[in-house]
């Protein structure tokens, strides 16, 4: 519990320091906004319409494969911690788990979901 107290304080401080920098910049710097300055910077062209671009599905697919991997890895970490006291068949179960994970990768690969186009 004590280590979490320290980490909580540390995280609060790590939010505080950059916030302090931002506030410092805000107060010490000049502030003279005008319409041209606060315009969106899009290569000097006038911005037409709302910011909206139809993005590629590709981004979703990368994030999706990442999500699946992330969750499976969360399962693997306790297994790795317990590893030294596991019998061989338990190690094998972990290996089966990793092989299934690899199968997911192979499917996404074969399907072309991981190819940037």
């Amino acid at each position, binding site marked *: 519990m004590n280590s979490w107290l320290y980490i909580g304080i540390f995280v609060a401080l790590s939010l505080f320091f950059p916030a302090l920098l931002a506030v410092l910049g805000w107060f010490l710097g000049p502030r003279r906004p005008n319409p041209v300055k606060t315009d969106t910077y899009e290569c000097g062209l006038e911005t037409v319409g709302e*910011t909206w671009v139809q993005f590629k*599905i590709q981004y979703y697919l990368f994030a999706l494969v990442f999500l699946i991997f992330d969750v499976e890895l969360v399962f693997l970490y306790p297994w790795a*911690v317990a590893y030294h006291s596991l019998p061989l068949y338990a190690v094998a179960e*972990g290996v089966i788990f990793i092989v299934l994970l690899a199968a997911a990768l192979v499917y996404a690969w074969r399907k072309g979901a991981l190819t940037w186009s």
Partner: protein
Amino acid sequence: MTAMQIVFILTAVVTLFAAFRVVTTPNMIHAALWLIVALFGVAVFYILLSASFLAVAQVIVYIGAIAILMMFVIMLTRREMRDRGPQTGPQWKWAAILSALLFGGLVWMVESMALPAAPVGDVPESSIADLGKALVSPNGFVIPFEVASVLLLAALIGAVYVAWTRRNS
């Protein structure tokens, strides 16, 4: 009031407020950001419950992956970046009444049960290793462990199949 109780109440207030904003704010990206705050609050609850591993797993899985995926999809399924008009349907009053009734019922149920005021013991130092052992032990959770892997594999295959067509490439 002990320090722990103050931390608990602060976390509860922040979490529930954030959760409330998730379901009421009209801007979808803001809803996703409030969801992150709520999920982070839940991670703090896990720490208070001495489940450190689950707390970091919560941050990795929910904030690092699920919330990012949701923000991606919000931005992908969008004709304009701004949301206009009310985001709740006309049935919201009925939903509110039903939710309030359910909350009342749940509180009544919790209060009428005889619940322990303090934990029966401490969490052992080796709890993560115990979890690891239980996950692969035949007397423990080896079937759910492998099934979870198959489930995630199936989810990946299904999701890639549904979302991905050659037309996109």
